[in-house]
């Protein structure tokens, strides 16, 4: 409960700022609509209004401000509108037994979650194996590490369509495969970097101690480096799973995808339904929050079991 208070405070502040921002964001469109409905405005035509700032538009047409909070296709919907849209595409459909309908965000979230988890598993495995290779081999350290860093400087939005095209050229029909690959591509890097740091974290004296026992390299790995890396691993897993989710959503953006939260965002854009975009965005954020929280709990439990946390 003590942790909830600061989080709630920040949440309320964000909602307040969001709410206030709705009026200036929507005023021009709202005035255009009001003009078409026959209202008298200051200034009268859309062309003239282009020259005037949103602030003075709001001052001079204060009667229309209410409209900005109740638009059908707002530039910026209110938190309430987003919540309503989210509810009607998730909870309400679930109550009606249509949770897995193609219009339900639960269905699209599930598609995204699956690819994210596959990408996360793949990326984590690659990251850990790469880190072990880097820590134990000077050659790999010098050859692999620069490429790992370069790989992350290539914009993923440029790379994602290529991965999708290549995988369909290879005859992989299932869209989930390239999505998981893109997801793993973003996810492996934080895991790799964190694990390298963790495996290298034992002090010299601790390695010297094992040397006096004439411990083998494998014993040193199992009894010292691996346990010492666990806190680092969890920290990077939390970054990694968020990156995996972003990767999956980016993988759903290129045309062709019809399911997944990324596809919902794209479709919402193409059909001019901003509420759908916002609902999908919030759903993605909630999904990321849940995944990171689960890992956080796993971290606490593991570290407490290991005796590394009170």
């Amino acid at each position, binding site marked *: 409960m003590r942790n909830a208070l600061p989080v709630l405070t920040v949440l309320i502040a964000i909602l307040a700022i969001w709410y206030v921002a709705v009026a200036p964001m929507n005023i021009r469109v709202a005035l255009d609509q009001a003009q078409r409905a026959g209202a008298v405005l200051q200034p009268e035509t859309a062309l003239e209004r282009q020259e005037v700032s949103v602030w003075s538009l709001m001052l001079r047409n204060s009667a229309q401000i209410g409209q900005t909070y109740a638009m059908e296709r707002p530039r910026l919907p209110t938190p309430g509108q987003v919540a309503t849209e989210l509810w009607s595409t998730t909870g309400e459909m679930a109550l009606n037994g249509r949770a897995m309908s193609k219009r339900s965000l639960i269905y699209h979230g599930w598609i995204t979650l699956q690819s994210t988890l596959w990408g996360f598993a793949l990326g984590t495995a690659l990251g850990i194996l790469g880190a072990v290779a880097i820590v134990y081999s000077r050659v790999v350290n010098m050859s692999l590490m620069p490429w790992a860093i370069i790989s992350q400087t290539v914009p993923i939005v440029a790379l994602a369509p290529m991965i999708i095209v290549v995988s369909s050229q290879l005859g992989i029909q299932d869209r989930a495969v390239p999505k998981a690959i893109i997801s793993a591509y973003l996810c492996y890097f934080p895991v790799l970097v964190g694990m390298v740091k963790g495996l290298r974290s034992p002090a010299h*004296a*601790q390695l*010297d*101690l*094992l040397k*006096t*026992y*004439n411990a083998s390299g494998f*014993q040193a790995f199992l*009894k010292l480096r691996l346990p010492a890396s666990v806190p680092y691993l969890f920290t990077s897993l939390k970054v990694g799973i968020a990156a995996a989710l972003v990767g999956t959503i980016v993988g759903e953006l290129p045309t062709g995808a019809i399911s997944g939260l990324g596809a919902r965002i794209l479709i919402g854009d193409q059909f001019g339904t901003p509420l759908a975009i916002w609902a999908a965005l919030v759903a993605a954020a909630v999904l990321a929050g849940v995944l990171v929280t689960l890992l956080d709990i796993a971290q606490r439990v593991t570290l407490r079991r290991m005796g590394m946390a009170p």
Partner: protein
Amino acid sequence: MRTNGGSDLIRDLAATQYCCQQEKTDVTIQPAINAPVISAKGLDLTFQTGDGPVHALRDVSLDIGKGDFVSFIGPSGCGKTTFLRVMADLEQPTAGQITVNGTSPEAARKARAYGYVFQAAGLYPWRTIGGNIRLPLEIMGYDRADQDARVARVLDLVELGGFEKKYPWQLSGGMQQRASIARALAFDADILLMDEPFGALDEIVRDHLNEQLLKLWDRTDKTICFVTHSIPEAVYLSTKIVVMSPRPGRITDVIDSPLPRVRPLEIRDTPEFLEIAHRVREGLRAGHAYDD
């Protein structure tokens, strides 16, 4: 404190842990007592650092006999730790020879001939105190029942009896240091290399552990190399006191102590004791004067 139980524990330890060596020791103790276990001749060690070479050891020659208790004393930076690390094959000398048990330090290390107590306790935070002591036993492949018995024994020895299941962060710094000593005592190594093991402890506990260590040494015939900054501690414990001085690190005096093997704490008030202490102090002063 469970002081009165201490000597019994030591006897137990000596009787059980070293039962197999007992026979051998009885037969060989007379002729072998001064055969060098560690023998260094003309050791030189220069570290190449960013600000130029650091001459950590120069022309260090020393013979340490079986069953000797040798203290190394000298100002900070005179190479005490470096010398111990050379014995332990953790550092390679740039010149000179050193043998341990008649072989190279590397061979001795691979034969697990010594236990090393580092300046910092260095316990694994993810292992309990018992688990930390078990670490060398696991690595050396002792069976489970033997591990349990040894852990219990050495924990009693350093008076951490009830702390087997505690984690290092639940213990004071001094208790952690005692646990690290127990870790080095848990397996059968003839040589004990201790780098300022009691530096972090209060005077009373330190006295007590000094007494315990002497008893352990007396009954087990271990060869002990012990680094300290305390003159009384060095004189009280040692059969041989090595005085070192810095820049470059070298040996300036080696004092063979005439004190008997069995030493009650009160021996520290005898004239013989004070005389040796005086000589050590003079040696340390001379080292400093040489520098200035």
